[in-house]
């Protein structure tokens, strides 16, 4: 059972629950007090000791149900072994490779003995010449076969499975453990000598393959989930936002939300950092005038740190429609990290969207913004003019201005002079462009003209780049 618990911990880690050694020790101790008798209590125990958030509890609950939906090896019943017959014992030797599965095999034997009369009649005559696996298959005792698969699986270290590409290897290993090569020989012999029995064995073999494949698939689901997810996320992080497929959009949203959460965790906590600067000579002298200016008390200058102020301008026109979704999602998360954020969206003209982003869920906010200004043809010139007319006052020398857009202005006047004035008023201007550097300046792209007034211009085409860019912006205020 200990083995089983360890396997369950690994499965739990696979499901995304962080199980530390200390927690697994707790769970072990708890289980030793609780026992295994009541599945429901065992489940509660695991939830209480291992999972430390609501999400983890849900994941662990699912994982528990999946894990224990597998045929559970019944507790070893040693005395029953005596009356199980020779062939029953033989059949298990194929999977006898490790000690951990000991319980399974003996119980398999016990089951075999119960079903003995029927199965002996079925495969009684030719069994002497056949290998153990063939005999077992012909007896068609499902419990016995399941147990044999389970023990062969643990001998083939099935819990190590990580990627779906490994399915073939592990199926092969398990079948090898069970003695498939001997079975093949038997099958060849039988088709020559006893075709009807051979056919039956063939069918049973196919069923066995299916069962093994099923076992491997389930193990992959249990143990491989985290790796697979990491791999997929890694690919997704580096995929260009503008070219992801529709079916990936939801996953991408989840990923961006994860990134946003990470940013929030990292930057939302005010960190106490040493703020003491150089010695303030003048104040020190003044303070110690009473002692004839012998500096008993020292006064220090303080490093000045700006409170973060961000103004975000987000292009939501047709040319960047696919990316702007994610931009807006990230701005939404910015609203949670930084107190003072004002955000604006534009295509042909510009509106303020701070309220919408602050009050609504990301999905609702995005839908509303898109319906208000989205999908138009972009006009950077007039949008910038809108901004200058109404909200120029929002920019102070502490403000970072972020512009998210491709700078494609449909050959209209780009009004780079307004961006210059914005740059002069603000701390800095960061331009994040979903297009690659190669495309800047070609066609109707006005990027080079704008770039002269920006402190930083970055390509921002993938989730990873997006995270880097925003993290850098927030970090300058820390």
């Amino acid at each position: 059972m200990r083995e089983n618990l360890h396997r369950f911990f690994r499965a739990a880690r696979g499901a995304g629950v962080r199980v530390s050694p200390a927690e697994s020790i707790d769970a072990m101790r708890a289980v030793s007090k609780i026992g295994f008798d009541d599945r429901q209590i065992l489940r509660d125990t695991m939830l209480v000791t291992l999972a430390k958030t609501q999400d983890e509890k849900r994941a662990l609950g699912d994982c528990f149900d999946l894990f224990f939906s597998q045929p559970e090896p019944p507790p070893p019943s040693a005395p029953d072994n005596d009356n199980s017959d020779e062939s029953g014992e033989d059949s298990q030797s194929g999977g006898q490779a490790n000690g951990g599965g000991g319980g399974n095999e003996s119980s398999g034997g016990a089951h075999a003995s119960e079903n003995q009369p029927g199965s002996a009649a079925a495969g009684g005559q030719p069994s002497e010449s056949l290998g153990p696996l063939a005999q077992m298959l012909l007896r068609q005792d499902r419990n016995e076969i399941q147990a044999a698969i389970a023990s062969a699986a643990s001998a083939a270290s099935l819990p190590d499975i990580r990627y779906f590409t490994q399915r073939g290897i592990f199926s092969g290993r398990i079948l090898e453990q069970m003695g498939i090569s001997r079975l093949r020989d038997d099958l060849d012999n039988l088709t020559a000598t006893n075709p009807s029995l051979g056919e039956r064995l063939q069918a049973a073999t196919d069923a066995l393959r299916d069962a093994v494949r099923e076992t491997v698939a389930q193990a992959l689901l249990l143990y491989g989930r985290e790796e697979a997810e990491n791999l997929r996320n890694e690919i997704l992080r580096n995929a260009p936002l503008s070219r992801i497929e529709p079916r990936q959009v939801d996953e991408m949203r989840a990923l961006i939300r994860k990134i946003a959460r990470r940013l929030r965790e990292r930057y939302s906590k005010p960190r106490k950092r040493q703020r003491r600067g150089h010695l303030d000579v003048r104040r020190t002298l003044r303070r110690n005038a009473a002692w004839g200016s012998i500096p008993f008390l020292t006064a220090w200058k303080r490093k000045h740190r700006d409170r973060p102020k961000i103004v975000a301008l987000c292009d939501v026109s047709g040319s960047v429609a696919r990316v702007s979704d994610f931009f807006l999602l990230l701005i939404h998360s910015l609203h949670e990290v930084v107190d003072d954020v004002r955000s604006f969206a534009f295509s042909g003209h510009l509106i303020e969207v701070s309220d919408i982003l602050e009050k609504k869920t990301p999905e609702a906010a995005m839908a509303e913004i898109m319906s208000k200004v989205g999908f138009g043809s972009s006009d950077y010139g007039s949008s910038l003019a809108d901004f200058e007319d109404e909200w120029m006052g929002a920019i102070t020398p502490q403000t970072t201005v972020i512009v998210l857009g491709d700078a494609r202005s449909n050959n209209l006047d780009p009004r780079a002079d307004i961006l210059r004035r914005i740059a002069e008023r603000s701390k800095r201007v960061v331009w994040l462009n979903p297009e690659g550097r190669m495309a800047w300046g070609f066609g109707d792209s006005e990027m080079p003209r704008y770039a002269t007034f920006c402190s930083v211009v970055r390509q921002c085409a993938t989730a990873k780049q997006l995270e880097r860019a925003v993290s850098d912006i927030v970090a300058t205020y820390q």
Partner: protein
Amino acid sequence: MPEHRPAASIEAVESGLAAQGYIASRQIATAVYLAQQIEKPILVEGPAGVGKTELAKAIAHWRGQKLIRLQCYEGLDEAKALYEWKYAKQLLYTQILKDKLGEVLGGAATLHAALEQLHDFGDVFFSKEFVEPRPLLQALEQPAGCVLLIDEIDKSDAEFESLLLEILSDFQVTIPELGTVSAVSPPTVILTSNSERDLGDALKRRCLHLHIGFPEQRLEERIVESRVPGISQTLRRQMVAFIHEIRTLDLKKLPSVSETIDWARVLVLLQAAELDTEIIKDTLNVLLKYETDIEAALPQVSTFVAKAARQNVFG
């Protein structure tokens, strides 16, 4: 008062808490049982008013132990949570003992000798007598054990969590001047949190984690039954069903168990025999704490009442 003995089973915990008027779900009972068996603190999370604090009180009553409560808030530090030196007393004593000191030191010929003699007294003024124990230290000093309730830990600063780590994992605290104080008998520690901020992993790792959500209908009926005995069965069923309907709405603050109990009391006071739209409209402010929530719920009231009544017939 029963002496403190570990409960034998989960059922014993359940019935023990029920005797105190706390109807625990199976999960809660399991967590309490485990906390006792493997001596671990419980971290209880969940929405406000589902009985997190009540749980600690019920455990203390049931075991006949003292409940020591530490209410967390922003700016709580070790002087208020752990221990403090009694400065005034130290000062007063030095003044009183001034003459005595002179006497003791009188025999010393040189300054050096006087200093030597002073050293012999050790740290008289930094001994146990001058320590003012605060809740955490008090909890460790209880000879019969106690229930230590650290309430709303999410309201405290992140630094305070680190202060708790030692007491949570080893049931001891270290006072620099005195050394390490270990628990006479390990207290049952219960931490509650409203998830206002995420707690650190180090803290979570040391605790059993219990999430109390809104109870199921049956359980809530039992809770009302034990807390408000005067209420009739029909009314109880109807009102709990009604509250479960209310919780499906998108409200700022969903009514939790404490509101259910308050409302049940109000209904009993008003001598309502049955739930009807009028009485609900009059008393909805007991259930919902925001004007916007009440406005959102009002148009739904009659449908919910109908639903609740139907459930009563068939359930």
